[in-house]
């Protein structure tokens, strides 16, 4: 419904757009600009550009706070979560979408139940299991939880996609001598690349941003993620505003870059569960 004429209504629309645009973007720009200021510069000149650009706020994060270690931890957790989730999720979705079994719908329903369980509701038993299997401060344990909690939504969306792949393709491959296993790797997986890429980015964003499980399970400084490091940093030196600003920017940058690179895909993926098409 394209409106082209410059009417009073459209002017009001523009005002609303610009207003909410400013409310959304300005805090981030302000934080970005402030991260290059000295403390005195920030307090005497809150709104303006830095009098001189300094990078020590960032370099301090890496020298004093050893943030690089946290970044590597977060990256490792996120990448492993994405990899395992995609492999396990795609394999299960392939079966649910392509094989006629009476229990198919029941399996799907079983996975959907998982979407109803908030992670807050399982965190106490998780901490007990962690105690029993030495899961505290273990990356593999927390990755296992991330994989498990992300699987339901992933399977829900990916199965939906795989059902739309013509069944004849898989059947033809099998007639041509592929077995069911090869048909997955050679036919279904390559065709599902778009949806897998989208879901992979979403699960990366989710793992990078996660807080409560990391808060409970990762107690050792050597295993802490960026989110945890940010809360610690805030507890210790919140009054150092420019330093805080730099920390915030480091915290949001990775997901922001992914978002700007794959905007439409991410938006579609995040809303796939609620609207179709």
């Amino acid at each position, binding site marked *: 419904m394209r409106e082209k004429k410059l009417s009073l209504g459209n002017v009001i629309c523009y005002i609303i757009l610009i207003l909410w645009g400013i409310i959304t973007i300005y805090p981030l720009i302000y934080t970005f600009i402030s991260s290059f200021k000295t403390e005195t510069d920030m307090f005497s000149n809150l709104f303006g550009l830095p009098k001189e650009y300094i990078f020590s706020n960032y370099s301090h994060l890496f020298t004093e706070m050893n943030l690089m270690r946290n970044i590597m931890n977060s990256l490792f957790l996120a990448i492993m979560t994405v990899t395992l989730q995609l492999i396990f999720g795609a394999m299960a979705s392939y079966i649910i979408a*392509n094989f006629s*079994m009476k229990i198919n719908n029941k399996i799907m329903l079983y996975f959907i139940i998982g*979407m109803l369980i908030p992670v807050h509701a399982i965190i106490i038993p998780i901490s007990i299991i962690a105690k029993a299997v030495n899961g505290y401060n273990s990356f593999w344990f927390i990755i296992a939880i991330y994989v498990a909690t992300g*699987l339901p939504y992933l399977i829900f969306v990916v199965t939906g996609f795989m059902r739309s792949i013509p069944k004849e393709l898989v059947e033809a491959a099998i007639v041509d001598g592929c077995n069911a296993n090869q048909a997955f790797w050679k036919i279904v997986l390559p065709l599902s690349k778009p949806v897998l890429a989208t879901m992979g980015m979403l699960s990366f964003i989710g793992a990078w941003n996660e*807080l409560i499980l990391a808060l409970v399970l990762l107690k050792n400084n050597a295993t802490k993620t960026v989110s945890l490091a940010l809360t610690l940093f805030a507890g210790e030196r919140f009054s150092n505003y420019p330093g805080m600003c730099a920390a*915030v920017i480091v915290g949001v940058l990775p997901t922001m870059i992914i978002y700007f690179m794959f905007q439409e895909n*991410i938006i579609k993926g995040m*809303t796939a569960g609620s609207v179709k098409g």
Partner: protein
Amino acid sequence: MLNYKNYKKTVICFLLPALLFYTAFLILPACQTVVLSFFKWKGVGGTVFKFYGFKNYIQVFSDKTFWLSVSNLVKFLIISMSTQLPLGFILAYIISLQLKGHKFFKLSFFLPAVLSVTAISLMWRMILSGNYGLVNTFLEVIGLESWTRSWLTDPKICFTVICLINTWLQVGVTFVILLAGILNISEEMFEAAEIDGATRFDKIFRIIIPMTKDIIGICAILIVTNTMKSFDLIYVLTNGSFGPGDINQVPTGLMYITSFIGENFGNGSVIAVFIMIMGGLLSSMLYFKSFQEE
């Protein structure tokens, strides 16, 4: 469709990893939470499990802080619903007009939804801080000094402020879902309405709102479930205290504090069960609806 009987091995091998992880680390723990809520059990290292019947439930339900967290949650839901739905709808409507620059605005409006809630909460803590915070300084500059306050600790307003920050974070999701809904309405409908002399408001109230009724409902449920789950935001904004006092407490926060700070895992499990039932009921309405449609 392939017959699974010919490929039993493959079927089992392909399903097993997902089913195992999912069952072991999501379904069983969820059941365990329910069981634990009937036991008394102290400390992560604590050993003595004692069957406690409904005593944990009685303790939690007679605790004033629990009811404070529930009433905060209700307030949180009301504010989220009454800000996110209208704002999301207005923004979606305007973007659907495809005015010049709409792509840029769409991109900006959704941006907060992908950013680290921890980092964003720290950002808002700085912006709203009492001394040298951006908001207070701005108010001073434009001569509204009497409006300045410590936004995140003043008991009268702090929880409302937190709710509004949550709206800032979440409205992008409502916005894009509604936008997809509005763009699905066929162009001819609007053209026909225009020929009949429909005004902008006729189009909104007679076409768009009735046509997107279901999607508005989905958004409402999504807002409720997302709000029920919010923890990171309040945890970081209040520096882990959910205070001053317990004034900004919500059930997720109370569950965390009771179990992992107070080491009372029995009571913590009761709150976790409460969260699971409330969250489960509400999101089941959402997912089963879209599942049935398929």
